[in-house]
């Protein structure tokens, strides 16, 4: 199968600020992540808040270029492009943000927001109007409302408009950064269905980021689990749901309400407490060792790499 997007050993580091801290590593936000996304599929990325999911998405789009590593997009190496080339190239990849309330400029009518990308592409005013009306219709917003301001819409409607704005660029790839986390549950389903319909209709490829495992399992073809900037498990959605292997994945599963705890009751009981670890700790230790129920001394002296345990099922753990 051709890999539409291929990420190789992607690393994103953040450094300290100021004269003395300039070279001090502050955060290993994304640590040596490699993955591939097939054309017209959904890659689901799960992990707790702050584990580097969004950073990874922004690095793939070169909105926040990676420190090292390669991003191949449909055969093009993004790192090899100049800033201007990236800007032109980026119309093929768009991003939908978590919070629809901050994703639209409050001082702009929604038609102006939607026109921004079209103007940048040099579309004439007449063609713009037609395109905007068609896209609004496509995402389920009455085109007659195009002269309104963002605050006149509900959260779900705003997210539809944000999706429409991304589609003005006619992208092949959408990074969906927790697109429904800020919405009511009833609205979530609508937006998810809209996104899946659009994917079929426009043959899009998605990177779907979420912390909701059930949701990711529902929409994705492939799932990657991230912990502290590292990809700890990677498998097809069916395989992941049937055979989660990494202790952290199991913990994620056990923290979904209504699911049976898999690795027994934990001392903390919720995933929020998992975050006590500093992300910048020494790299000669499995990052999950302190929370892990099956870790032993060996886990504290080396970092596990992803290895294949079954066909197309990768886990980064010494004990599996």
């Amino acid at each position, binding site marked *: 199968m051709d890999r539409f997007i291929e990420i190789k050993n992607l690393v994103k580091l953040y450094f300290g*600020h100021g004269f003395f801290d300039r070279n001090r590593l502050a955060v290993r936000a994304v640590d040596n992540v490699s993955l591939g996304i097939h054309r017209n599929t959904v890659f689901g990325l799960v992990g707790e808040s702050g584990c580097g999911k969004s950073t990874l998405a*922004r690095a793939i*789009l070169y*909105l926040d270029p990676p420190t090292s590593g390669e991003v191949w997009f449909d055969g093009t190496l993004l790192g090899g492009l100049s800033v201007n080339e990236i*800007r*032109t190239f*980026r*119309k093929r*990849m*768009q*991003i939908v*943000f*978590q*919070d629809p309330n*901050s*994703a*639209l*400029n*409050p*001082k*702009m009518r929604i038609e102006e*927001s939607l026109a*921004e*990308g079209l103007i*940048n*592409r040099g579309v004439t005013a007449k063609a713009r109007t037609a395109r905007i009306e068609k896209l609004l219709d496509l995402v389920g917003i009455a085109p007659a409302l195009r002269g309104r301001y963002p605050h006149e819409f509900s959260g779900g409607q705003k997210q539809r408009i*944000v999706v429409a*704005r*991304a589609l*003005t*660029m006619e992208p092949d790839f959408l990074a969906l950064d927790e697109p429904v986390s800020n919405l009511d549950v009833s609205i979530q389903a609508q937006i998810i269905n809209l996104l899946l319909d659009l994917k079929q209709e426009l043959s899009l490829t998605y990177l779907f980021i979420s912390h909701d495992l059930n949701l990711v399992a529902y929409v994705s073809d492939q799932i990657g689990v991230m912990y502290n900037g590292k990809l700890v498990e990677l498998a097809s959605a069916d395989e992941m749901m049937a055979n989660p292997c990494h202790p952290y994945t199991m913990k994620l599963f056990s923290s979904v309400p209504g699911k049976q705890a898999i690795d027994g009751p934990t001392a903390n009981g919720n995933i929020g407490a998992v975050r006590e670890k500093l992300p910048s700790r020494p790299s000669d230790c499995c990052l999950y060792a302190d929370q892990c129920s099956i870790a032993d001394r060996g886990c504290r002296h080396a970092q596990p790499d992803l290895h294949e345990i079954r066909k197309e099922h990768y886990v980064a753990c010494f004990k599996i």
Partner: protein
Amino acid sequence: MKKRNTLLVISIGYIVILGVAAVAAPSIAPYNPVFQNLDERFSPSSKAHFLGTDNFGRDILSRVIYGSRSALLVGIVAVSIAVLIGSVVGLLAGMAGRFIDNFLMLLMDSLLSFPTILLAITVVSFLGYGLLQVMLAIGVIFSPVFARLVRAETLAIKTESYVEASRALGTPMIKTVYKHIIPNLLGKVIVQCSITFALTVVIEASLSYLGLGTQPPDPSWGLMLKDARNYLVLAPWMAIYPGTVLALTVLSFNVLGDALSEKLNPKL
């Protein structure tokens, strides 16, 4: 809420009257503001002189009316200068890298660290006396206030998703600044303008009081207070009227600023 609105209406009404008085001073003022009638020195309120006369027999009402000209002119020009310098510096600091940011903010902070009046006196003594110099000095002095505000707002707006989305849509940075960042910080800047305006009026009066601003015999509220200083017991009206007008002006612009702040930044 009702009470607030009344206060706001009164304030706006006062500012409008002040503006009209300044523009139409020659046709409104009953006397020439510099005309000295030594026979009528220190006369209290009367039919002929509604607010009395001063130590040279000049009509105080006429002088207060003409004085509003220099107060408002200084306010408008000085605030414009401050907004212009401050916005450019603030946007640059907010958008450019850390090095430029630090440098510009150091510059602005060192301006802020001087006591306002002292700095004004220093600048005026370099540039020379007079209204134009005062306007320039006050404009420069208040520019850090705007630079700080614009920079802070720019940094905040920069993190909003729509700015990043605009980058993803391929919008050049300059265009992002005037389409996304400037419209969203304008509200705060306008509010600050109103409050700064009130301050410039006070500074102008202070500088004139110290003899560095408007030069006699031209009328200015600060100068009138200076003249009144020696006759506070003999002719208190010489100080009371210009003082009251000055205080009301400052108060009105502050009330207006508060109201604008609520109107333009409803989240607060």
